[in-house]
């Protein structure tokens, strides 16, 4: 299991390849990558992500352990960046390795749903009009009721 919270960009290719290798009894690997969207109308200059250093790793670790207890998983990866990110940059990734695709997919969705609403990150969008904190969406909170 690898969990990283960092300002640096990560190498998706290297991370995904490392995850897919060395698990010969595991047939399925799922990755999710979150990217800073650049909607034409929003004129986004950059996204600033703040987090709660003392709590973040612990919170993500607890979410990852929950996933491992719910599904048959060989490995779990979570990388989440903070600080300044430009449009098009990768914000974060999760990866799951499992014997079967259903476990790999469901666990990745679970990780994403919980990271959205239970990991202590806050996003601020800086546009030419000013700065705005991204509001949590009701649908993201509602997504947790699925599990």
């Amino acid at each position, binding site marked *: 299991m690898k969990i990283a919270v960092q300002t640096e960009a990560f190498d998706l290719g290297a991370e995904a390849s490392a995850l897919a290798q060395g698990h010969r009894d595991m047939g399925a690997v799922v990755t999710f990558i979150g990217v800073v969207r650049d909607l034409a109308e929003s004129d986004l200059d950059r996204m600033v992500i*703040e987090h709660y250093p*003392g709590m973040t790793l612990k919170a993500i670790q607890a979410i990852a352990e929950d996933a491992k207890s719910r599904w048959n998983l060989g490995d779990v990866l979570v990388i989440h960046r903070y600080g300044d990110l430009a449009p098009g940059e990768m914000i974060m990734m999760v990866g799951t390795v499992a014997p079967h695709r259903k476990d790999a997919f469901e666990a990745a969705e679970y990780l994403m749903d919980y990271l959205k609403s239970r*990991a202590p990150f806050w996003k601020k969008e800086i546009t030419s009009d000013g700065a705005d904190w991204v*509001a949590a969406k009701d649908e993201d909170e509602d997504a947790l009721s699925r599990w």
Partner: protein
Amino acid sequence: MDVLYFAWVRERIGVPKEAVETDAKTVTDLVAELRSREERYEAAFADLSALRVAVDQELTDFDASIEGAREVAFFPPMTGG
């Protein structure tokens, strides 16, 4: 006890962290005490439904005990991922 603020709560209160001496027994008591201090606290805590709280780095409810706690943090709903 350290009290931490994140995102717009931090911006409204003006500091990311401060030491607070209190006899408050629950988060709700602590919020009441802070609100009575200054206008900026009143502004930050005006709508508790828009806030979340962690005691000693664990997400919890406003009626949670803070007796013996080393760290209480207030912030808006998280927007990770």
